[in-house]
C-alpha cells in the first residue's frame, strides 16, 4: 500500500501523520488513542487532523492514565481492533510498564498463539530538544530486553512512514520509538509502505574500514561523523538498525566481518544499554574478524541532564571520531585498559 502522494518534502512528524491516516483509511479496525491525540492532534502534532477526518470513535482522547491506555488497548485487540496508542513522552510510558511487560509481551505466548495483540505503542523518545527532566529518556533497552515485543525506531521520514505502516500491519505488539529530535527533520521522499521487511537493518552509507552502528536520533550524528571521518582517511560504513528487536544479525555480521572494526552509537546510558547487546553479539560472532574491540559511544550512566548540560551528555561527532581513533589502527592496544586493574573500585 502506497501513499497517494508523490515524492515531496516531508518532516518525520508529517510522515508519521500520513502513515496513521493511511492506516486508518486502509483498515477499519485501526483506532488511535492516547492523551491529547484527538482535538489537539498530539503535543507533537503527529495525530493532527485525524480525529476530524476519521471521527471521535476512531481517534480519541483518553483519561490521563498510561496503564489504562495500554491495558484497554489489549482488551480492544482481543476484540479484533488494531489499536495504535501514544505515550506522550518516554518517561510517561513507565506507568504502563506492567501492562507492557506482563501482558502485551506475553499474551500470545500465554495462550499458545490463540490471542494475537496487533498493537502499536508509539513513544516519542530521547533528548536533544532542551527538554526538562522526564521528557528525554531513552528507554529502548527496557523494551528490547522483554521477549514478545518488537522494538522499532525510524531515523528518517520515509522510514518513519514505512515502519509505522508495517508495525500497524504486524500481528505482534510493537514498541514504536520516535526520536523526537528528528520530528522536524525533512526529507524529500515518496512515502511507501512496501519495501524491506520490518526487521531489516539498512546500510545507509557504504564503507570499508569500520562499521558505525546506530539507530533513531543518533543516526544523523553518525552520518556526520562518517563524513568527518572520510576527511581523516577512514571510510566508514553506517548501519541504521531500524528494528532493535529482533535485531538483524545478518546485516551486522556481514558488515563487521568485512570491515573488522565496529562502533555502536546511541544516546541512552551505556551500562546495560542496547549497545552492550550489539557489542557482545559482534564480539562473539565476528571474533576472528575483529581488529579492535567493538567500542560504544553512548550517553553517560546518569539521569538525563538538564538542557544546560545535555550537550556534554549526548554522543557528538567528535566523540564518535575519538572512538574511531581508538580502534587500534596502528596495532597498539588502547592504553586505558593496559593497567591490570581497570577502574579503581
Amino acid at each position, binding site marked *: 500500500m502506497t501513499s497517494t502522494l508523490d515524492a515531496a518534502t516531508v518532516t518525520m512528524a508529517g510522515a508519521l501523520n500520513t502513515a496513521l491516516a493511511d492506516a486508518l483509511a486502509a483498515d477499519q479496525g485501526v483506532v488511535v488513542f492516547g492523551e491529547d491525540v484527538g482535538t489537539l492532534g498530539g503535543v507533537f502534532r503527529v495525530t493532527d487532523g485525524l480525529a476530524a477526518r476519521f471521527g471521535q470513535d476512531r481517534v480519541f482522547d483518553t483519561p490521563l492514565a498510561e496503564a*489504562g491506555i495500554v491495558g484497554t488497548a489489549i*482488551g480492544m485487540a482481543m476484540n479484533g481492533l488494531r489499536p495504535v496508542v501514544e505515550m506522550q513522552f518516554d518517561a510517561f510510558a513507565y506507568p504502563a510498564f506492567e501492562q507492557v511487560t506482563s501482558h502485551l509481551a506475553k499474551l*500470545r505466548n500465554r495462550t499458545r498463539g490463540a490471542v494475537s495483540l496487533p498493537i502499536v505503542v508509539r513513544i516519542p523518545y530521547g533528548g536533544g530538544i532542551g527538554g526538562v527532566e522526564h521528557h528525554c529518556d531513552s528507554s529502548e533497552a527496557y523494551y528490547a530486553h522483554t521477549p514478545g515485543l518488537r522494538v522499532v525506531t525510524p531515523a528518517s521520514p520515509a522510514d518513519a512512514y514505512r515502519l509505522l505502516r508495517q508495525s500497524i500491519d504486524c500481528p505482534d505488539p510493537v514498541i514504536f520509538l520516535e526520536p523526537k529530535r528528528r520530528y522536524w527533520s525533512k526529507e524529500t521522499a515518496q512515502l511507501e509502505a512496501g519495501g524491506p521487511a520490518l526487521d531489516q537493518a539498512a546500510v545507509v552509507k557504504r564503507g570499508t574500514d569500520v562499521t558505525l552502528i546506530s539507530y533513531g536520533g543518533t543516526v544523523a550524528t553518525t552520518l556526520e561523523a562518517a563524513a568527518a571521518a572520510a576527511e581523516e582517511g577512514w571510510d566508514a560504513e553506517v548501519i541504521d538498525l531500524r528494528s532493535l528487536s529482533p535485531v538483524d544479525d545478518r546485516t551486522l555480521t556481514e558488515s563487521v566481518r568485512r570491515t573488522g572494526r565496529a562502533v555502536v552509537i546511541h544516546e541512552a546510558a551505556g551500562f546495560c544499554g542496547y549497545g552492550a547487546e550489539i557489542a557482545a553479539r559482534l564480539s562473539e560472532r565476528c571474533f576472528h574478524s575483529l581488529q579492535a574491540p567493538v567500542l560504544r559511544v553512548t550517553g553517560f550512566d546518569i539521569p538525563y541532564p538538564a538542557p544546560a548540560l545535555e550537550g556534554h551528555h549526548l554522543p557528538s561527532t567528535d566523540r564518535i571520531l575519538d572512538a574511531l581513533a581508538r580502534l587500534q589502527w596502528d596495532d597498539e592496544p588502547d592504553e586505558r585498559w593496559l593497567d591490570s586493574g581497570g577502574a579503581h573500585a
Partner: protein
Amino acid sequence: MQSLDFRPFRARHWRQLFTDVSHWEPNVTAVAAHPVSSSPPAGTGLLPSGEPWQLIDPAGQPVTEAGPLPPDPTLTELYRRMVIGRRFDAQATALTKQGRLAVYPSSHGQDACQVGGVLALREQDWLFPTYRDSVAIVTRGVDPVEVLSLLRGEWHCGYDPHQHRVAPQCTPLATNTLHAVGLAHAARLKDEDTVALVLLGDGATSEGDTHEALNFAAVWKAPVVFLLQNNGYAISVPLAKQTAAPSLAHKGIGYGIPGELIDGNDAAAVYTTVQAAVERAAGGQGPTLIEALTYRIEAHTNADDATRYRNSDEVAAWLARDPLTRLEAYLRSAGQLDDDGAGRLRAEAEQFAAVLRERMNADVPADPAELFAHVYAEPTAPLREQRDSLLAELRDAGEQR
C-alpha cells in the same frame, strides 16, 4: 463460635464475622472541615445501600421485601452448578496433595459468586477471571482439564480464550479490569452486543489499575460489569488494612458508576444483580460496580497457612453461612428439591470429579520446541537460532544416552 443473627443481614453483622475487627474502622461520619453550605450532596443515588442486598437469607428464607426471586429452574441450575463447582474445587485441592497440581487457590465459600456471576452472562459476553476463579470458568463451559493446565504447570493458559469468551486467568492483580474495559469498549465501537464481566478481589481494588479501569469504563460508558468478590482477605491482609471506606462499592460514585453492595453468599442475589447490570450495560447505560460480601473458607492457596492470621472461629462462622446449604434449604422448602434430586446431583458431581481425576492422572508430554513457537506470530531469526540450538542439545543428549 460467634452467634449469628441472620436476618436482616447488616453490614455491622458482616463485620462481626471477622475476628480481627480491631482495625476495622471504616470512616462513615464526615468530620466537617468547615461549615459547609447546606446544599445537599449530588449523585447519592449512585451509592450502595447501607446493608448488603439479599434475596434469600442464610436460613433459606426468601427476603420478600427485597424483590422477586429468579424463576425456579434458574435457582435449581444455580444450585446444580454450585454442587458441581464445589466438587471440582475439592478435587483440585486433592490433586495438589497428589502432586498433580502445583498450586490451587480455592474458591470454596465464594461459590455463589463464581456460579451466579457466570450464569447471568449471555452466550456472547466475555468473562475476565483471576487465578481464584477456576469454578467460574468451568461453569462457563471450559474443559476443566484445560482450566487446570496453568496450575498443573503445563502451560500458562490451557484454553483458547475465544472459544468460550473467557480471558486467561489473570495473575497480576487488577490488570484484567482494564482488559475487560477495552474489550467492552471495542464491542461498542464495533456495534456488537457484548458485555464483559470482570472478577476481582478486595485486595485488587487497591491497585491503580482498578481505578483506571473504573474511570475509563465510566467515561466511555463501556458495557462492563465489575464483580468484586470481597472475601475479607488479600492473602493474610484483612480488609481493614486494605481500605477505610464505608464499603468498596462506595468507590463507584467517585467515577459516576452505581455501586451495589450485595450478600455474596446468596446465589440468587448475585445472579439477579449481575444480570441486571449486564442488561444495563447492554442497554448503553454503562458500567456497574458490584461488591459481593463473601469469605474465603480455605487458605489463600494450598501453600498458605491461614492459621497464622485468622482463627478457626471466624471460619466456622462463615461455614454456617454456606451458599450451597442456603440455596438447598430454599429449594427444598419450595418443593424444588428432594432427597432423590439431591442424590442425583451429588452423583453427577462425583462423576464429574472422577473423570477429571482420571484425566489429570495422564501425563502430558511437553514439547521443548514449543517454547519458541508462540512468542511472536512467526519465530524471529534469533528465536529460530535458539530453538535449533536447544534441539541440537537434546539430540546430543539423546545420542549420548
